[in-house]
Every structure is written in structure tokens, then in C-alpha cells.
């Protein structure tokens, strides 16, 4: 089980779980609640290369659509294609419903992400 305290965060309400040279990215509970029932997820392809801040996919509810952004530079190594069939997973367990795994190509950028405490404050300000 993933826990908030082990993760890093972006101001696009995405979480990043760094595992050695690779990282998982997903949507936080805050964002999944704001979107409502998620009905569709669009993922990129394995080996796609993205820079920090690039849009890599889309997540949609009935009344909203949001882009998913790359938290830091990376190359996609694995996709959670289960989400395509069961997007509701994101609402049910946001920390388990990862979108993709990527190879971290610029570790220094990790320093630009928020810590759990920073992110908590960030959410309070947004709410």
C-alpha cells in the first residue's frame, strides 16, 4: 500500500512515487474528488519521452476534462492499462490507481516537487 508520507507532489495535484531509477505517477484524492466520477483515461505509449510539465494524457469525468502532466522529465516504461477499462479505480483508491511508470532522466528535478507537508498546505489554500 502506498502512503502519502512516502510520496512527492506537483501543483497539478499529482503524486509521484520514486522507486530507484523509476517513478510512478498518479492523481491525488483531492483532484479525484474535484473531478467527480472519472469515466475515461487516455494514456500515452511505452517509450514516449516527455519533459517536465508536458501533457502525457487526459482524465475525464462526466462534466470535466483535465490533462495529466509529467511531473519531471522521463521516458514511459509501463502503463496501467487497467485504468482504461476501469477508470473508477482512481476514485476508489487514488494512490493505487497509478497512470504510468517512467524512467527518471533528470533526478535533480525531484527537488522541485512538494513534500507531503507542503502539499497539504497547498490543498488548504486551494480549498
Amino acid at each position: 500500500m502506498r502512503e502519502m508520507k512516502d510520496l512527492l507532489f506537483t501543483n497539478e495535484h499529482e503524486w509521484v512515487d520514486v522507486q530507484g531509477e523509476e517513478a510512478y505517477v498518479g492523481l491525488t484524492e483531492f483532484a479525484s474528488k474535484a473531478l467527480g466520477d472519472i469515466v475515461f483515461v487516455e494514456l500515452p505509449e511505452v517509450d514516449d519521452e516527455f519533459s517536465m510539465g508536458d501533457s502525457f494524457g487526459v482524465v475525464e469525468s462526466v462534466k470535466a476534462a483535465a490533462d495529466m502532466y509529467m511531473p519531471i522529465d522521463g521516458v514511459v516504461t509501463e502503463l496501467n492499462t487497467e485504468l482504461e477499462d476501469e477508470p473508477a479505480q482512481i476514485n476508489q483508491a487514488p494512490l493505487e490507481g497509478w497512470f504510468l511508470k517512467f524512467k527518471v532522466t533528470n533526478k535533480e528535478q525531484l527537488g522541485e516537487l512538494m513534500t507531503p507537508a507542503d502539499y497539504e498546505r497547498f490543498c488548504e489554500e486551494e480549498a
Partner: protein
Amino acid sequence: MNNYNKLLCDISKPGRTGYRLPPDELENIAVEDGIPAGMLRKDEPALPEVNEVDVIRHFLNLSQKNFAIDKGFYPLGSCTMKYNPKINEDMAALPGFANLHPYQPEHTAQGALELLFELEEMLVEITGMERVTLQPAAGAHGEMTGLMIMKAYHESRDDHKRTKIIVPDSAHGTNPASAQVVGFDVVEIKSNKDGDVDLESLKAALSDEVAGLMLTNPSTLGLYEQNIVEVAKLVHEAGGLLYYDGANANAILGISRPGDMGFDVVHLNLHKTMTTPHGGGGPGSGPVGVKKHLVPFLPKPMIDKKEDNTYYLNYDLPQSIGRIRAFYGNFGINVRAYTYMKTMGAEGLKKVSQMAVLNANYLMHHLKNFYRLPIDRVCKHEFVLAGLGKSELHVSTMDVAKRLLDYGFHPPTVYFPLIVPEALMIEPTETESLETLDSFIEAMAAIAKEAEENPEMLKSAPHVTPVGRLDEVKAARNPVLKCASMGGEN
């Protein structure tokens, strides 16, 4: 006993027909002789086989599941759901209009061209513009056309830096979308607490990269833009153009003209202001008017008059943005608008706006006793409430809207504009009587009371409609977009 709830594909029966053609005297000519087998269909298309009686009953029963202006009050803000006069329909259906081929020679269609020419003149007078194209098929199509004209204007001056369109945060979603498809970047600016354009925010956004500003006046809050003169001055000083979204023109006929306000481009929605029917979502007509400096860029063709007073389609427009659709606009819709404007005349059109504004203020005056009115000043043809204003009741604007269905009213526009939380946008129009307004006020008051005493009644509403609240999540997760039973050929 009756099967009228079914789909046509489910009542289809092999061998049944609903048509009859004259006898085919040319059966000796075989399709297979002229067209290679590889180009021909092997199976008949998967369409139903039904009788004319089936068809009429099917659609008549379906029609009964619709709410419509002909059934009752439809105060849908921003949509101007006013009565659609019956004579408009009859005039558009006259064989002398309905059975004209778009390519028949101009001298055999002088009546049609004269009508279009004169409709343009009338719209010029109402908007205070130099010329109007009747080609756009809808409001969004008009927006696109108007923005193309603005872009073409800047390009003609070799001013290629102007890539941005400013849009207020209260704007219709279509405004930014139209700017996007025409290749502009959208800059959003804030409204101030009175619902007007925030001048400081506007000043900060203006630069030599701004192509123009899109504005609705009255605004989507139903308020006349107090700073309009200053806004126009600022945008023009920065070299930009002003675009008028005519969605709310029902408030200003004979009262205030976009041209006089300083706008360079305007689109009107004839399906709102000029009573052409909404048709369940179209067809509409979205004419675009422009000031003199933009006339050369209007789409092809324009309708012009020759010296001998005959009319013709003018394609000789070298700076035109080009064609924006086939033929010359939604002619049948333009016939309806022309009929209406001739019926009302100058006096009637002004009265339209006066009564529309009177009706809106009357409703606002009463409803603010039960609902939260965020900006309390004289409104124009519509106004926006911020729901019940009692969050402790846990009753949403959506619940109020759905409960209104049980009272036999179409709900107002909900959750728009985005800058007002729990928005209920109410536009009564001028075609509603005092008695109708009073009964709507009564229903809204009763619902406010129910929200306190029996909130469950609202949350589970509607109770008397053909179906209850439908599962939109299911529809979007597993889209079923066609009838499964008949199957396609695949």
C-alpha cells in the same frame, strides 16, 4: 399493450413498408451493368421496415416526452426561449421559398435575394454596423466567422503579432473555444464585484499582441456593462478590435446598439432574438455584422444590388476570408426572422426589449426573497441567483432545477456563469404574461420552503417526468450510441 416506448429498430418487421414509389418503367436498366460489383452493396442497409402508421405513432408519442415552449414557461437563461410565431413556419414553407434550388439562375430567385438583402439592412439598423453577412449557421459559427474577420484584418495590415483574444471569466464557453479554433490564444480576465469587466485586469492584459476582446453586453449576469465606453476606448487604443456576442441582444433592441457602444464585429442569434425556433438544438442562424473597416473581409458571397435594382450574389471580394459553408446561409431560418421583424416593426422590437427587461426585473424582485441574489441592481433581460444561499440545507441548485420539472416548468440555466456558485440563470422573455410569472414565483417559493422542510423531496426529484434522473456516469463509461438489436452490416 402499446409498444410506443420501443425504438424503431425494435418494432421493425421484415416485409413491412411505409412508402410507395411510382412504377419503375426502366427495370430493363440493370444497376449491375453500369457499376462494377466491387462498388455495390451486397446486403441492404440495416434500416427499419415499418409502416407509416408505426412512424407517426412512434414520433408523436416521442414528442410527448419533450418539454417545449408550446407547452409552457421555459426561463432558460441566455437562450431566449420566447414564443415562436406560427406564421414564421408557414412563410418558410411557401413553395416559392422552400422549393428553390441554390444554383438556379439569380433572375429566377430575385424575391429570395431581395428578402436577404432587406434582412441584412434591418440587422444593420439594429446593430449599428456597416454590413451583415447572413451565412453563419449558428451563433458559434458566427463567432468563428467574426474572429476570422478580425484575424484577416490584422493580417492585412501586416500586424502578425496579434495572437491573443481577451475573454472575461463570465463568458460563454463557446467564446474561448471559437478563439482557439481560429488559431488565437485565449487570455481570461476577471469580472469585478459588480459583474462588470475589471478595468485594471483589462489594462494588464492589453498589449500589441492582443487582437481583440470578446464581450457580451448585457453580460452573462444580465447586467449592462457600466464600463463599456472605457473598455472600448482601452481596447482600441491598444490596437485591438471589439467583438460583440449577441447572445443577449433581446435586451437592447431599439435601446442601445453594439455599433454605438464601440464594437467592430457583432453576431446575432436569430434563433434567440428573432423567434426562429430552436428545433431541439438547431438549425439556427448567426449573422455577423461589421464596421466599415472590416467589410472587405466578410465571407463570400455577399448579396448586392445592381444599378437596375436587381440583386446578385457577389463573389468578387478579393480580401474576403473565403467561404464558411456551402451556399448562402440557413435561408429558411432567415425567412422566419424576416417575417418576425416585419410583423413587429420598429415599435414592436423596442417593446420586446422593454417587456423582456420588465419581466426579468419583476421576477428578480420577488425571487430574491427566497434565493440569494449576489448582485442587486436593475437587471436587463435576465438575472442570476446563487442558489438558495443556505448551504446547511445541503440542497443544490440541481435539486431545485429538477424539482421545478415537477411543477411543470422548464428549469433555468444552472451552474452558469461559472463565476457565480450554484448559479440559477433566469430569462423570462417578453412573451410571458404576468400570470405566468406569478405562478413561477409561487413554485420557486414553494420549492424554497420544501428545501427547509422536506429536502429529500428535492433530492429525489423529478417525480412526474417520463424518466427519473439518468445515470450519466454509466452513459459515459460504457457508451451505447446506437440501437444494438438491428445491428450494422459489420
